[in-house]
């Protein structure tokens, strides 16, 4: 079972900031502390920058909608952690593939192969005013096509340097092997990119592609070409099983191995030592601010939570979980200090890190360059 945690400054309940011990705005400190806690628990990765509330809700000023740019935040956490994977959300709505490839290749080198790009779309409600550009897609279908092409181009750019391209042979004076660094000459519907990238091949070959969930249909069929970790929010085991099977079969249709895709269920966690205390916490939080209606959430003891995760996993509902602590640091502390040891005792999660890269943690193979002979 794979365990990830999504981080937000105070936590994922909209009232988290009203009860958390963390100050109103504390910069990067809460993220550093949470990433180190998650690493202590041997989690595969922490995920940064996923939106906690839509723009309209944030604008009213009643929730903590502040958002440090996840890219510098991933950068900072590289120095503050040693083993845990670091995923950063870069919404693709207006992004350029060369920038995405360049930044994540850099981060992956700096982090020794621990990075992943969380791809997805913020949507027009979020961006319409902030970036007004006539060349951007105006409907969801077009936006999904642009996203799929963008991910594809970024992956081509990572491949543009074969492993043997970065030679750095001091005595011969050969820095790069021009025969192993390739222009990609991509000419698609949305992007024309010549390449090659000006950063050598990332440590992982390609940083992991984590993909925000996409509804069944054309958009999902396109996303299945590239998604390696799907961040979904299924409400029931049955729903999860169906979606997981769909993603896997779509991946196979793209010529991929179904096991190269990890379907991960996201769930908000409100934990306490007794069930009554957990229910009380949830009620207190909900009284302060109505919870996000679309979020799957668990309320109970760490032991109950461990049993819940085990049940879903055993049923084949998912390959792992992305835990959204309702309030930081308490719900993450309980996850790491109580839930994880219980899962370890059941043999469901590994007892420590046995690899150095995010791909290794997730059991995904290193990506080979498409240009390699």
């Amino acid at each position: 079972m794979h365990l990830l945690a999504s981080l937000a400054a105070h936590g994922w309940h909209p009232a988290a900031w009203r009860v958390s011990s963390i100050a109103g705005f504390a910069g990067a400190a809460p993220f550093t502390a949470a990433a180190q806690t998650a690493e202590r628990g041997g989690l595969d990765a922490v995920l940064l920058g996923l939106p906690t509330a839509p723009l309209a809700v944030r604008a009213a000023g009643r929730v903590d909608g502040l958002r440090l740019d996840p890219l510098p935040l991933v950068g900072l956490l590289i120095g503050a952690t040693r083993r845990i994977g670091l995923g950063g959300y870069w919404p693709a709505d207006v992004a350029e593939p060369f920038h995405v490839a360049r930044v994540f290749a850099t981060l992956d080198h700096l982090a020794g192969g621990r990075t992943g790009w969380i791809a997805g779309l913020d949507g027009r409600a979020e961006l319409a005013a902030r970036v007004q550009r006539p060349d951007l897609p105006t409907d969801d279908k077009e936006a999904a096509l642009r996203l799929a092409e963008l991910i594809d181009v970024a992956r081509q750019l990572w491949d543009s340097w074969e492993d043997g391209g970065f030679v750095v042979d001091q005595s011969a004076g050969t820095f790069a092997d021009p025969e192993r660094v390739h222009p990609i000459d991509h000419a698609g519907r949305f992007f024309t990119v010549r390449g090659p990238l000006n950063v050598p091949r990332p440590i992982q070959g390609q940083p992991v592609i984590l993909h925000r969930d996409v509804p069944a249909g054309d958009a999902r069929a396109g996303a299945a070409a590239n998604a390696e970790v799907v961040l979904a929010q299924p409400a029931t085991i049955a729903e999860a099983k169906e979606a997981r099977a769909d993603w896997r079969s779509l991946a196979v249709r793209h010529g991929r191995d179904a096991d190269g895709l990890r379907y991960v269920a996201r769930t908000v966690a409100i934990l306490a030592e007794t069930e009554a205390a957990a229910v009380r916490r949830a009620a207190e939080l909900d009284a302060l601010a109505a919870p996000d209606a679309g979020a799957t959430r668990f309320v109970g003891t760490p032991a109950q939570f461990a049993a819940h995760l085990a049940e879903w996993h055993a049923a084949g509902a998912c390959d792992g979980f992305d835990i959204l602590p309702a309030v930081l640091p308490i719900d993450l502390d309980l996850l790491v200090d109580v839930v994880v040891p219980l899962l370890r005792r059941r043999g469901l999660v590994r007892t420590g890190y046995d690899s150095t890269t995010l791909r290794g943690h997730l059991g995904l193979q290193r990506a080979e360059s498409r240009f390699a002979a």
Partner: protein
Amino acid sequence: MAERRMHLGVFTYPGGHHIAGWRHGSVQPQEILGYDYYRRTAQAAERGKFDLVFVGDMLAAREKDGRVIAQGALNNIDSISILSAVAGATERVGLVATLSTTYNEPFAIAQRFASLDHLSGGRAGWNIITTANDDAALNFSRKSHMEKTMRYQRAREFVDICKGLWDGWEEGAVAADRASGTFVDTNKVRELDHKGQFFSVKGALDLPRSPQGWPVMVQAGGSPAGLEFAATVAELIFAAQSNRQEAIKFRAAVKQRMPGHGRDPAILKVLPGLLPILGSTEKEALEKETMLNELLHPAVGIWMLSEQMQFRLYDYPQDGPLPTADIRAGGSAFTPRVMHLMERADREGLSVRDCGVLVAASRSHGSFVGTPEQLVDHMKLWLDEGACDGFNVMPAYFHDEMDLFVDQVVPILQRRGLFRRDYEGTTLRHHLGLPIPCGSGR
């Protein structure tokens, strides 16, 4: 009268600034893209009380005829990633990242620099570039590079939008009043509503005002359009003059233009690039220079020369004179650097190979070969004559040459009252003696 003090930056680079620096035996070339490589440079800079660490930006690979240069080193990898990674390993040193206004969107860039400023506690700077190389266009779905005047017009509008966004949040806008449930005092957040020639942007950042208000505004590039842009926005200029008289003229020219834009010329700091090659004796330094130049593959020098002159020199005899007449007849718009080099080649009868070595060895910034004492004399002369306010140090290779500067040059500068003995503030603006922006979007 107290000596005027200088400001120091270090320009980090994969391998080193001498184009063959990466081949030096002390360099571990497999490590030049890793965290520890950059952490070590930033920590050395902080040990030396430097004002800042600087990282450049390029958006296309170094190529000749459609293939990467086998012997050429890489350009900088992504600047914000490097500097945010080292932010946690340092406490005081400024962090200046380079990002292009031609290939980015202002909202995202304003958010990114505000984030770097927050997570570094007020140490961020933005080197604003318009991206000079044509190849970048081909990586960004454009058929050709935007024309220079347009690029600078776009840059000015881009920067205005960023300033408006950074000033959108007043101090104290994050109320975080737990009792009433008011997280943000929305009366203290102003939405920008910008409609201009290049951009339409409406909204406010998702971040409160950062410690410095705005990152320090940095500019590099000495063309007439660049100079006017610098006079409009720059608080710090990373200059490229290698000749003292030209540096004096350049600095005066920018300062002279500033009042016309309602700006105080006294705040401007100009830091030329400086590539020092140091030895405990002059002879030792010269030997080090010879050794480095011998490591330089001639093909790299001729490639760099051809790129800078926008003229193919590959078929000319390497030992023959630089064909300045042919190059001039080519009719390109030459930069002052290139003009200067051609004049020197005519005067001194330099060969194609000689010119290649000259350009490649320092990447056409100023260099100095000698002892630490001699270097300090050289730096003091530039400072005293108004050629600069300090230097952006470009070590020939990392880490030995950086350590040498920090451990042997900085103490002399300090003893002679030319450089701070310790940090006196925590922000980059404080190190540079720059004001904190007032928050009115101007």
